[in-house]
């Protein structure tokens, strides 16, 4: 399997999927058809879980995500959560003045078992 990098666009975030065990998602995620955008990312994660184990870091640095993207983010987190071979860690970066983005991260944390590290900047 290979590392994958997706450049950000007007509607889509920048995504880096690294075979060393790190995922970074940053920018805005607000496409109407979030499912099509996130499908290859879900497949990459499924493939990673099938072939690798150990430490796995997910870093979110999202400025904004819409409701269609929220569904895809939760799906991704639930998949990682269920992977017993992975020691997952989630970093949630947010602007210090933006309480809503912090709340959105806390909310996702409630819905999965993997704890989040909240990092204001």
């Amino acid at each position, binding site marked *: 399997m290979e590392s994958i990098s997706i450049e950000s666009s*007007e*509607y889509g975030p920048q995504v880096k999927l690294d075979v060393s065990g790190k995922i970074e998602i940053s920018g805005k995620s*607000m496409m*109407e*058809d*979030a*499912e099509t955008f996130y499908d290859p990312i879900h497949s990459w994660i499924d493939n990673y879980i099938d072939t690798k184990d150990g430490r796995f870091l997910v870093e979110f640095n999202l*400025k*904004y995500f*819409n*409701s*269609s993207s*929220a*569904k895809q983010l*939760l*799906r991704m987190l*639930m998949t990682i959560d269920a992977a017993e071979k992975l020691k997952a860690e989630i970093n949630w970066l947010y*602007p210090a*003045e*933006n*309480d*809503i*983005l912090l709340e959105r991260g806390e*909310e996702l944390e*409630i*819905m999965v078992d993997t704890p989040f590290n909240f990092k204001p900047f």
Partner: protein
Amino acid sequence: MSKTNNSIEDSNAGRIHIVSELRDCFKNDKSTVYYKGAFTDSFTDRIITLAEFELERKTRRRMAFFVAESFQNIVRHGADVPENDELSLFGVRGIGSYLHIYSSNLVEEADKEIIENSLAKIENLSSEELNEYYRDLLMNNELSEKGGAGLGFVSMVRRSKHPVQHQFVKKNGLYSFNLQIDFKNESLSNEGKQEEPLNIVENSNLYDRTLEYDISFLYNGEFSDDMISSMLSIIEETNNTEANSAGFQLYHGAVEMMQNVVRHGKDVKDGNDGIFAILNTPKGYYMCSGNYIKKDGLSIVENVESLNLKTKEELNELYRATLKKNVLKKGNNAGIGLIDLKRTIDSKIDIAVSEDKDGLYLMMGLEIKI
């Protein structure tokens, strides 16, 4: 976008009807854009995209020229008073094969005279006389202190092939200079119909209404990805939408409401046509959207009314439960858009449905307190 404190209407339910009334005025428009506030050059592309997405390259270049000239005119002649940003308005309307570019800003009496003189000189010139006058101006390099010698106006008339419509209206001890450039989108057929350009008085009357209702932005037309992206860019460029919660609320409200227009309007006649407006309120902003819906789309009214009765905690619980229920289902509908909007904005969602010959029209509005 500029904020003023002259709202005459404090009821949010009233604001939704104001936008609905304005929509009636734009019924024959293919697209309408109104923006009130400080102008920056970066708006040119956004405004052109919003005004007419199907422009051919040549027409797009002409339009860019007129938009830039209008902006420059505002900068060149605008009175140096704080209220100028609040009273400066820019609008584009596409009606039939015509595009109308309208601007209004405050000028001082001395500038009024300069502008009137420049316009009087070219008022009744034939196209040959106009070309000759243009060459004379260039060769004599007769630039005024304001850097124009009327060259801008001459270029507008030469390239639009129409006289420049204008008015001066006394306002706040200064003059509101209303200017309208009319030009035809040659790529559009008007099926041999005789068309007349819109009279500037109509736009000026609408301008007065947008001031009265403190509307800072309005778009009426097709809601495609490009349109939404242009509107969001304008909102981003005029507000700090990333750094704090209030900016996030504004951005979130705009995204969800615009995407709602696309989502619910797409199966109805005329595709994704809709309206989106931002009004200033004493507490912040009132955001409003409208689009046609199918008859079975009426369940949204009941849904919104039920969400309006819930506390923030209840909304959070409902959001999580709905998201978890739908997370593994195929498709993009997470069923959480309205719940998320209501809990993020934390104010009542107003909703109004009306019916006309084209079907059911749904309008939604909400206030964002800053």
